[in-house]
């Protein structure tokens, strides 16, 4: 039969999605459903002096109004779950509803519950709050300076932590270096913008004491735990369901006040309560990404050997420490400073800083794109300084393919790689010589073409639980699967991870169907409901296939092992006489004497004739905890045409060569790359969350925040190399974040290459026409 593993079959989740029959959280309707809205602070930083909700309480249809005073002694603050050790991390309380002070524009001060959505919104206008405005800043560097407004009484200088990564002796390397380059790099705030805004529906049954929470979640088991903490309700009394989830990109990982508050309201009122974010609210209160101000340096020899990398980073956390926030600019950023290269001396100082902005947490790539960006920018700047082709600098410093597993200066052990292979493949697609010739010709005509190249690595497949514990992550990072074969032979697989667009209902079915010799239609993947799935740690960090997929494979193998024993018993042969061929266990030499999985499942489920001591049933549970992270890699190339009169950047070609190990479904892998690349190009070209001097979000709607449109984005040429990972039974790495990690740096490298004749080495992203044009004018002024 056809090999399912590696086949680009159509997705099994699509029929419901293309016919409008899928159920997202806001589609959930329950008898007696009520609606919640939140009154939010218009000020970025202010003392609350009076809250009057009496008019709102009397408004038509209003059932209840809760203020911070009403809930502060009944509910715990929003927990931060990544307690990074050794950095003096300070996590001040994040109240579910502010009652003393608001610390960012959007901080909630009251919740209204009404019979209809419209009545709840109408009553919002009647909430009367007096604020005493305080100074505010959303700039993570300025927030540390003397005179800056203090957000939290117990966090002097707004510095939440200072974390240091140190490998080798960077100070000595820089002191003795032949060449050193430096840059101040701003990695702007971004708005994750999952197309489905967040939503929650809570239903508490006071008879059973059970709370059911439908939530837009990437990790329902984590949300169950975090809600248990906030609500002071035992974990086993909470069922979290993530039904269809319309994208996440990290923004649906954290705990937020909203879902706990609607749960609280349902428990208090005895009715189901729904809250659905609108987009403006989403941009105000759902986590943001990136927000680094970085001072970065690289040193090396005149002939292109990199000897050191050093950084000082101000990482904005926003007003409170969100669920995973402290781990993003530290563990997931600083530890990755070696990139694809042998850099013997690395030192980074990361200041996590509270500001009056929306909390910042994991956004696609989470820390790793910021690392890849600064490394890959520095390589180009360094190459320019020594007059060497940046491609040759990369080649010279790559970790060679025969050196894996390789321990980098920061202590990570890279699992496998062939960086030069990916580079060569990408260059082959481009035709470098032809491009350089065209570039030279164009420059004579006053046209500025540029080539950007990035050779990235990613740390993903998060990860060994022991490492999670050692770095302060408040949970495990294994994952789980139950493979259950029904009497009729069909299979359901219950998984701990919680996909929301990544297609694992298809890829995981491919894994099991391949093992069982089944058509893929006979296997169904169940996810997203904590009441019927085993403990899992969610879908993020490009971990689902590498970790949960491995659990699926191992559970399927366990079932198959039992099936083999049963087959031997029924065929009255020894186990050693059996082999798996095509779709059945067959007696060696007599292939017609065979038992397929469906028949064995029936026999196991009825248990009429079991081998002595064997339990009935045909199912197995597997928990998979990897021994290491996986390290996907690749080379991306972008060519651009920069109009120096307008600053407009036109992308000519975008080539992505990624290595994520053997693809289970190449069509789905390519789709992940496409989406990731475009998100990174959006970051490179046009996306930026802008705060004004009073920390008001200026780009607070889709009219102002430039989510990439189809007409603005290029066609992406996708190719792969395949280097299996040794750390999981599938050999897979991860592909969800790869595109985003590479593409922003690739684009900026291309534009800086185009503008090399002007002496331009760096422009901060996003490269809007205004920024590019201003950089050209400034450079012309300097040259004149």
């Amino acid at each position: 039969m056809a090999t399912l593993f590696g086949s680009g079959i159509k997705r099994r989740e699509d029929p419901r999605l293309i016919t409008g029959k899928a159920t997202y959280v806001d589609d959930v309707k329950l008898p007696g459903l009520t609606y919640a809205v939140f009154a939010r602070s218009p000020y970025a930083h202010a003392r609350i002096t009076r809250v009057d909700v009496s008019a709102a309480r009397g408004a038509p249809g209003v059932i209840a109004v809760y203020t911070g005073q009403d809930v502060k002694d009944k509910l715990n603050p929003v927990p931060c779950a990544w307690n990074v050790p050794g950095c003096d991390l300070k996590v001040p309380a994040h109240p579910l509803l502010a009652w003393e002070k608001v610390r960012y524009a959007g901080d909630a001060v009251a919740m209204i519950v009404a019979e209809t959505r419209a009545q709840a919104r109408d009553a919002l206008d009647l909430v009367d709050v007096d604020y005493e405005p305080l100074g505010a800043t959303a700039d993570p560097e300025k927030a540390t300076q003397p005179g800056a407004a203090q957000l939290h009484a117990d966090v002097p200088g707004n510095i939440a932590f200072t974390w240091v990564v140190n490998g080798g002796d960077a100070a000595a390397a820089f002191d003795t270096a032949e060449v050193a380059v430096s840059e101040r790099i701003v990695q702007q705030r971004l708005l994750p913008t999952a197309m489905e805004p967040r939503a929650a529906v809570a239903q508490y049954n006071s008879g059973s004491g059970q709370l059911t929470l439908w939530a837009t979640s990437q990790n329902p088991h984590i949300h169950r735990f975090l809600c248990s903490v906030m609500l002071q309700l035992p974990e086993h009394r909470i069922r979290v369901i993530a039904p269809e989830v319309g994208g996440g990109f990290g923004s649906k990982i954290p705990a937020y006040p909203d879902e706990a508050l609607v749960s609280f309201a349902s428990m208090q009122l005895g009715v189901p309560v729904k809250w659905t974010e609108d987009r403006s609210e989403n941009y105000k209160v759902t986590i943001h990404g990136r927000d680094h101000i970085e001072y970065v340096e690289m040193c090396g020899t005149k002939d292109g050997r990199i000897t050191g990398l050093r950084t000082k980073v101000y990482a904005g956390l926003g007003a409170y420490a969100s669920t995973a926030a402290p781990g993003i600019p530290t563990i997931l950023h600083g530890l990755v400073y070696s990139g694809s290269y042998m850099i013997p001396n690395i030192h980074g100082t990361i200041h996590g800083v509270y500001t009056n902005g929306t909390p910042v947490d994991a956004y696609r790539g989470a820390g790793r794109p910021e690392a890849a960006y600064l490394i890959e920018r520095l390589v180009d700047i360094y190459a320019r300084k020594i007059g060497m082709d940046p491609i040759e600098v990369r080649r010279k410093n790559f970790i060679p393919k025969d050196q894996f597993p390789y321990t980098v200066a920061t202590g990570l052990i890279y699992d496998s790689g062939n960086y030069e292979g990916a580079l060569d493949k990408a260059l082959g697609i481009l035709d470098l010589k032809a491009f350089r010739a065209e570039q030279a010709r164009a420059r004579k005509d006053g046209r500025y073409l540029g080539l950007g190249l990035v050779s990235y690595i990613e740390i993903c497949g998060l990860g060994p639980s022991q490492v999670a514990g050692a770095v302060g992550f408040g949970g495990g990072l294994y994952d789980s699967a139950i493979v259950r074969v029904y009497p009729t032979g069909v299979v359901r697989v219950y998984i701990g991870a919680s996909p929301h667009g990544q297609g694992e209902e298809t890829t995981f079915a491919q894994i099991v169907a391949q093992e069982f010799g089944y058509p893929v239609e006979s296997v169904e993947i169940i996810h997203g409901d904590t009441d019927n799935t085993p403990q899992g740690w969610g879908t993020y960090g490009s971990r689902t296939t590498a970790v949960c997929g491995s659990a699926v494979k191992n559970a399927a193998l366990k079932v198959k092992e039992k099936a083999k024993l049963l087959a031997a018993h029924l065929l009255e042969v020894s186990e050693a006489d059996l082999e798996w061929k095509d779709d059945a266990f067959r007696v060696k030499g007599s292939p017609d004497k065979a038992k397929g999985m469906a028949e064995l499942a029936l026999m196991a489920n009825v248990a009429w004739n079991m081998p002595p001591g064997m339990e009935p049933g045909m199912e197995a549970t597997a928990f998979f905890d990897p021994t290491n992270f996986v390290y996907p890699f690749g080379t991306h190339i972008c060519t651009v045409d920069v109009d120096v009169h307008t600053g407009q950047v036109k992308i000519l070609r975008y080539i992505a060569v990624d290595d994520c190990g053997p693809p289970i479904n190449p069509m789905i892998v390519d789709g992940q790359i496409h989406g990731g690349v475009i998100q990174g190009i959006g970051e490179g070209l046009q996306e930026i969350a802008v705060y004004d001097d009073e920390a008001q979000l200026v780009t607070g709607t889709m009219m102002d925040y430039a989510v990439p449109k189809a007409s603005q984005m290029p066609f992406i040429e996708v190719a792969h190399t395949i280097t299996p990972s040794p750390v999981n039974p599938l050999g897979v790495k991860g592909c969800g974040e790869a595109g985003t990690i590479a593409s922003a740096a690739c684009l900026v490298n291309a534009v800086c290459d185009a503008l090399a004749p002007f002496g331009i080495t760096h422009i901060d992203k996003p490269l809007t026409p205004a920024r590019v044009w201003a950089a050209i004018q400034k450079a012309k002024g300097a040259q004149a």
Partner: protein
Amino acid sequence: MERPVTLTINGKSHTVQVEPRALLAHVLRDTLNLTGTHVGCDTSQCGACTVLIDGQAVKSCTVLAVQAAGSAITTIEGLAKGDTLHPLQMAFWEKHGLQCGFCTPGMILTAMDFLAHHPDPTDDEIRQAIEGNLCRCTGYQNIVAAIKAAAATLRAGHAGAAA
């Protein structure tokens, strides 16, 4: 105060009580349970709520339900004929033109109106046509491929019908 309004949706007439301020998107979802129409923004940028009104792709969050009285409205639920998917639905499935699926209904309905007037579009024309529909997952590449494939299927269907 609520008032009655009669809407013809996917060929069926519905009379519902709505507030004059109610948006068509909300009436479709909340009153008529047609939850395939999604709401992804509040400024008419994202296009997730796109439906056809008298054959024209319209963001249903920009229309009051009372304005749509007497019009023929097509939502994503009305595209397939029984178990037979519309060529656009089939092409989105075959070309992997969706991931999380949230933008997909609006994307398909925008494409339906577009293909009715541009049966043989170029990639660039498709990209221009869907620029009022945002997708954060796919990078648009497979959406463009899907719409192009659907165009070919629809052309072949018409040629077949003419023969």
